[in-house]
């Protein structure tokens, strides 16, 4: 089988449409992960009886089960309970919930990275709670949090391909559909790979640059 340029060009618009869905799903998933992760992190941090351990278990549970299993569960089981969502919405929620557990841990480790010496210096200067957080702890935590989050965002972008298995019409799904209907997989799957790389590679470079700029020694 040899590469057919004309065929490749003809399927490109459909594949770009798939890429757009992938990007939208990733972005929406990121927003859910950021918000839900923050809620989980704060509740765990506050050590509220019952609630905090429950959220701790949530993190372990979500991290301990495969994304695909969660996607299948949401896609096949939820409708039995009357919750019927489109594949796209289901996929976004599963992606967001899955990565919220990682995001929560990123927030936690970012704050823990700020040493006790910083807290003690704030106490020694009589800084009240609010400026201690907003001016001392969070600005330092963000420096380690942003690069860590960035790496998870790239991972989410790539992991969204798994959602093709719950018929979400994202990039891989489009490529596979073309392949099976045209009996040619070389061009669609190659282009799918290239398109994933075309987004993830520049994103990785950007995050590395951001990390360097945020470093405390800059």
């Amino acid at each position, binding site marked *: 089988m040899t590469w057919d340029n004309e065929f490749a060009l003809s399927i490109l618009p459909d594949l770009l449409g798939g890429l757009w869905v992938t990007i939208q799903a990733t972005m929406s998933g990121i927003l859910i992960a950021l918000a839900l992760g923050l809620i989980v992190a704060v509740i765990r941090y506050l050590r509220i009886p019952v609630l905090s351990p429950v959220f701790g278990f949530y993190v372990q549970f979500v991290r301990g089960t495969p994304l695909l299993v969660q996607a299948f569960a949401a896609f096949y089981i939820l409708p039995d309970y009357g919750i019927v969502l489109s594949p796209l919405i289901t996929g976004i929620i599963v992606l967001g919930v899955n990565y919220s557990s990682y995001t929560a841990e990123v927030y936690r480790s970012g704050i823990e990275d700020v040493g006790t010496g910083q807290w003690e210096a704030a106490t020694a200067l009589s800084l009240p709670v609010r400026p201690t957080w907003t001016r001392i702890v969070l600005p*330092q935590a963000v420096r380690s949090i942003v690069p860590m989050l960035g790496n998870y965002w790239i991972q989410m972008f790539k992991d969204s391909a798994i959602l093709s298995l719950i018929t979400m019409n994202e990039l891989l799904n489009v490529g596979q559909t073309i392949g099976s209907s045209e009996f040619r997989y070389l061009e669609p799957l190659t282009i799918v790979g290239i398109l994933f790389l075309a987004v993830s590679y520049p994103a990785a470079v950007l995050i590395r640059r951001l990390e360097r700029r945020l470093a405390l020694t800059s």
Partner: protein
Amino acid sequence: MSERASDVMISFENVDKSWGDNHVLKHLNFHVKPAEKVSIIGASGSGKTTILRILMTLEHPDEGVVTVDGDELWNVTRGRRIRRESKQMKLTRRKIGMVFQQFNLFPHLTAIENVMEAPVQVLGMSKEEARERAKGLLDMVGLDKHLDHKPHRLSGGQQQRVAIARAMAMRPKVLLLDEVTSALDPELIGEVLGVIRDLATSTDMTMLMVTHEMRFAEEISDRVVMFDNGTAIEQGPPQQVLRAPENERTRRFLHAVLEH
């Protein structure tokens, strides 16, 4: 009370503190007069740093009363739950400043921002006013050329001098110095001690320092206190405690330190 306040700046009454089985302060009674410069010496684990940390409210006593400048900082009855930050404590704490062994500068802020932070956030000072005060202090510690440098661009000695300026920015009545030269390379110790010497001779601030610099302690202290096993086993003028100690354990400690 008012009469006592005038001749006692720091007072520990019957203060007890343990870490598990380690009884670091044993019913300690300890007083420091206003403007007095006191050096605390002793082996590590003898409880000397704990005294500073209780004063800075970084630790709480298990029992006892601690006052600063006549105001109560801690009043703990054994077994009673401690409300960590009472209003009284927060107000009293403002009279105290501390310089740490590891500097603990804010790494994301420049030297002058480090010094300005508390006057702006705690005293509500305008940025301009705080900047002027910070400039004056950094000038005093010899860092007027490094105002806009972040800590990572400064040597350890310079960082510690910024930390001293930062503590001074709150105009504390009491300055606590916790082994402030222990983390420094030998050639940088002198510049930090020089700044502290200037403070000791030119201000009427009460200074309480934990140190291993025996010669420096002798030079600037009004009183040296030897700690061992949670109690002050010997204290007096530096010449007496450091040159002619009466207690056997002080003698052994000094021998070990000076040999080294």
